Every structure is written in structure tokens, then in C-alpha cells.
């Protein structure tokens, strides 16, 4: 493949540049919009040259919005905090529950394990509403509706299968002889798990955690159904934001930027493991 003609190279480069433009443009444009006042935004024709302002961000962060009709309270920072709390807690819980289970699936061949694995995998592709709608009724009965606790448990539906499938592969990569050697040297099973297996599978566990965080953060429908305004993460919150009257477009853009920046940064950091995570380990990155 070393003998591609210069014409081919130029064509390739041009096409790829177009492709990048298509995929990056929206992010870029919204990013620009977040620094524009309503006036600038509504100006026709739109131009790349304008006077940037931080007023959108200050309004969001301070939670107060000055409009012609008075001062509005914006709860967006609360949405941001909800996203952080929910995603981090869900991932933390999923790691605590999922890493030992992934170890069990990797090391032991037992019937129940295969059944659990199959169920979790097949429900990864099932319609979420199928589980969520009855769950919303149950939650109301047992008082878990609109609680962080309830939401974190429901988020396990996203985080746990991901952790299980990715981390199992990493545990399988750790040679059983190494674990045997540690046990023969006199250490209990638990110490072997914590001192040998988990550290050696460390990168995989971290990757799975990062990916699970991204997916939890990006989730929309779980919180839509099971959370009220006070507990909503940014995905639902941004939408509600839009429909509220009197909101300035620049602020919507700023809200979007704040909503997507964490996951974009994490994705850049964890890009090496993304292929594996997205395909549940079917394709090694």
C-alpha cells in the first residue's frame, strides 16, 4: 500500500476533510453559539466574526437569568450535579457488584453463570421501556420513585452488563498459574483476588468504568421516566430547559456545551478501549 499516487492521496485527504467537517461542525457551531448573545444569534446572515460573551455561562452557573420579563431561576447546575452523582454512583456500584461477578464468570464454569450472562446479554438489546414502565409503577408502590437510590439501581441495567462483559475478558487474560502461585505461597482466595487478579486486570476495569460512566451520563429515558425535575440529569434537564419560555438561545447552547464536555473529554482519554467497549469485546481495540 506504499504506492498510492499523489492524486489519490489528495483525494483521500479532501474527502476525509469533508467528513470531519460534517461530523465536527455541529459541535463547533453550538460551541460558538454558547458565546453569543441572542442578538448575535438572530443576526442574518450568521457570521464567524462576533463579540464573544460569557454571559450565557455566568447565567447558567449562577442560576439566575435576567430577561425582559424579570429574573428566572435556572436549575441547570443542579442537573449537572445530578448527572455527576448518578453516573459516578452507578459506576461505583456496578464495579463493586460486577468485578467479582466478572471474576466468577472468567474463572469458573458454572451453569448459573452462563444463564446470568445470557440473560444480561440478551436484555442489553431489549427495549428499555419494557422494563422501565412496569418499574415506574413498582417504584411508586415501594417509594423508590424519584430517589437517587432508585435511579442508581436502575442505572445498573446500563452499567453492569458493560462492566461484566469487558472485565471478564481481562480476567481471562490473567494467567491462572499466577493466581495458583500466590495461593500456594499461602494466601487466601480473597487476598489473591485483591492483590493479584484485580491489579492485573486494572486497566480493563478502569476502561470499563469509564465507558460505563459515559453511557450512564448519556442516558435519557431512565431519568425521563423515573425522576422529577429536582433529580434530572443534564440530558433530560437540557430538554426541559429548551421548552421553558424566555430562555435565551445562547444559554441553551451553553447548557449543551456543559452537558457534552465531560463525556467528550473522557472519551478522548479512554479512546483506546472504545472499540472493545462498544462491541462488548467482540472486537479487540
Amino acid at each position, binding site marked *: 500500500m506504499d504506492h498510492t499516487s499523489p492524486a489519490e492521496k489528495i483525494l483521500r485527504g479532501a474527502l476525509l476533510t469533508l467528513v470531519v467537517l460534517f461530523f465536527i461542525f455541529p459541535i463547533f457551531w453550538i460551541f460558538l453559539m454558547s458565546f453569543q448573545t441572542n442578538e448575535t444569534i438572530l443576526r442574518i446572515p450568521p457570521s464567524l466574526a462576533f463579540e464573544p460573551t460569557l454571559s450565557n455561562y455566568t447565567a447558567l452557573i449562577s442560576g439566575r437569568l435576567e430577561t425582559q420579563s424579570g429574573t428566572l431561576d435556572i436549575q441547570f447546575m443542579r442537573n449537572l450535579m445530578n448527572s455527576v452523582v448518578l453516573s459516578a454512583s452507578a459506576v461505583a456500584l456496578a464495579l463493586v457488584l460486577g468485578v467479582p461477578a466478572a471474576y466468577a464468570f472468567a474463572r469458573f464454569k458454572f451453569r448459573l453463570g452462563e444463564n446470568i450472562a445470557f440473560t444480561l446479554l440478551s436484555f442489553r438489546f431489549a427495549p428499555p421501556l419494557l422494563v422501565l414502565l412496569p418499574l415506574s409503577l413498582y417504584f411508586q408502590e415501594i417509594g423508590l420513585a424519584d430517589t437517587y437510590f432508585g435511579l442508581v439501581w436502575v442505572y445498573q441495567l446500563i452499567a453492569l452488563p458493560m462492566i461484566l462483559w469487558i472485565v471478564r475478558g481481562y480476567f481471562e487474560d490473567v*494467567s491462572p*498459574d*499466577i493466581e*495458583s*502461585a*500466590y*495461593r*500456594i*505461597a*499461602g*494466601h*487466601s*482466595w480473597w*487476598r489473591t483476588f485483591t492483590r*493479584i487478579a484485580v*491489579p*492485573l486486570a486494572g486497566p480493563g476495569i478502569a476502561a470499563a468504568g469509564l465507558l460505563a460512566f459515559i453511557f450512564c451520563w448519556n442516558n435519557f429515558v431512565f431519568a425521563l421516566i423515573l425522576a422529577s425535575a429536582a433529580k434530572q440529569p443534564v440530558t433530560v434537564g437540557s430538554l426541559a430547559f429548551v421548552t421553558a419560555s424566555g430562555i435565551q438561545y445562547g444559554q441553551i447552547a451553553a447548557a449543551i456545551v456543559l452537558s457534552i464536555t465531560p463525556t467528550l473529554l473522557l472519551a478522548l482519554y479512554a479512546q483506546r478501549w472504545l472499540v472493545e467497549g462498544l462491541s462488548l469485546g467482540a472486537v479487540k481495540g
Partner: protein
Amino acid sequence: MGLSIHDLKKAFGGHTVLDGLSLEVGDGETVVVFGPSGTGKTLLLRLVAGAHEASGGRILVDGRDVTNENPEHRGVGMAFQNFALFPHMSAYDNIASGLSARTKDKAAIDARVQATARLLKIDHVLGHQPRELSNGQKQRTALARALVGEPKVLLLDDPLRNVDAKLRYEMRLELPNLLKRFGSASLYVTQDYREAMALGDRIAVLLDGRIAQLATPAEIYEAPATIAVARLFGDPTINLLDVEPHLNGAGLTVSIANTRVSLPGGYAAAAGRPAVLGLRPEDVVVDDRPQGAVAVPVEVVAVTPLNERAVVLMRTDDGRELFAAEPGEAISGRRHGPAFASFDPARALVFDRADGRRIAPTH
């Protein structure tokens, strides 16, 4: 008694791999478990170590029944073929792991680790990570880890397999001294018969899930229990010739091509049953003229050097192949063509063709 194994069985699913092994290894003794790959030698070690659960039988370490115990309670040390060092710990910590489960006394641990490392000549690389060590150093570290706890039973799974040839011979000389020094009952697994004969006080030959023979190296070589055992020891492999023994006056005779071979007395039991004559290549002398009691006319077909010897491939008049091993100097003079293969019948081994067992001469 260091290690006792009684009627040990192991099956996977419906498939029996080990079918009732019994073995005793005394303190300070090294028993080599030898056999072709896949016979279950490594499995045996893992059963003793506790990595696998036995399907039947008992294992006693220093008189204590450990059959149902977890590995960490058995008090054995094990060195793996692939070293199995902990990649995220230094060599020092790898070795110390053999002690850190039992005591928190840092000073005591340090003293023992240093002493063991010195003995194995790796004290200068203790601070290194496993990936920075050479294969030879890795194996020594693995050995140190197994030995540091001064275990009653030592399990060595083909430790020299992944070490390069030069180092392998060095360590083959060092190991017996090391093992004697620690006084553990050692089970040593290898696929190399020369290693087995060099290192073992006794050799347990493992075939088809059973111990085919448990004896000293000399006995195994001189008096193998079966054809299979005889085949495993010796390079080039022992010559095996199908023969029909006839009772003939004074004793038993067999024929190779048209040459009569009178077997020494005491083989009367072999009369009438089809047998196999075993002849070690080094007992066969090739010359233009008959040498010794029996001389079979042959055609020399090929001559190849093998280490310091020469291997001569010959064909008898009835088409059978014979190997002889000769001192290397002979190779220069050896020509292809007609010659005589001579041997002393007393050196021959006789096996029953039906069950492969050696027929021992009665005196």
C-alpha cells in the same frame, strides 16, 4: 515421610486422566515424574498443590492429610514451567510472597529472602521487575519463591524447559545440591529422559494415567518394565524386533533374518509366545567382520553424527531396520554396504508381544 500419595484419581467429566496413582517420596528425596506430554504429569503436581480437586484417593504432606485442604494450607512450594511470576511486583516481593502470608515480621522475611536469593545467585537483581529479568533469572526467582518457605514438599513443573540450553545444563548440575540442602521431598516433572536420569533418585514413569514403573534410573534403563518404558529412555530409541522364540535343546532361540540367536538360559517362560527382542543401539557393534557371539548380516544404509557418537542405520536381509550407536571416530571409516551387526545376547531384553511386559529371566 515427606509426601505420600495413595490411589490418586482425577477425572474430567467422564474422562479419567489419572487412574489410581500411589507414590511415596521421602524427605530429601527427588522423584522425577516422567512421561510424554499429555499424560497428566502437570495435573499430578497441581493435585498435590491443591489447584485441582482430586476425584479420589488421598494426599499426605509430612504425615498430614491435605486432600481436602485449600492450596494455602498445604505447606508445599511450587515452581511453574512458565515461571508464573507476579508481573506487577519486584523479584524481592515475588519471593517474599512465600512468607508474607505467615508472618508480618519484616526483618525475618528480609533475612530469609536475602539468604535464599544468595543461594540461587539472584541477590543482585532482587529490585528488578520480572520483565527486566532474563529467563534464567526468572526461573531462579520462581525457584526461590518456592523454596523460601522451606516447604516439606517441593513441586517442580519442568522448570528448565523454558531456559536456554547452556543455562539448562548449568542448572541441572546445581539443582540436586540445592534440593538436598533444603531437604524437601521433591516431585520433579520433565519430558527429557536425560534430565530424569540425571536428577532423580527414583523415576516414576507416567503412562496412560498410571505409573508404569517406579524405580532408580539405572533400573529403568537396564530393566524397563514394558516396551513403552524402554522406548522412552535412550536415544536413538531401543531396537525392537518381533521374534518367535523356539525351545531348542539347551535354551530359547530366536531368529533375526536367518541368523539364529541363542538367548541365555532363564527365558524358558517365553517359549511359544510371540515376543519382541529389545536391543540398545549402543550394544550393537557394526563391522565388516562378525564380532562377538551373534552377528547378523546387514546392509549399512546411513550414518549420522549424534553428539559425540555416530548413529548407523542398517537393514537386515528380511528388511528390518537396526540402529547402532558407535563412538564418533568410527564415522570416518564407516562405508555404506554390506556389514555385520554383532551383539551379546545377554544384553538383549525380551518382551511379551501381547502385553508389552518384559520377561525377566529366571535363574
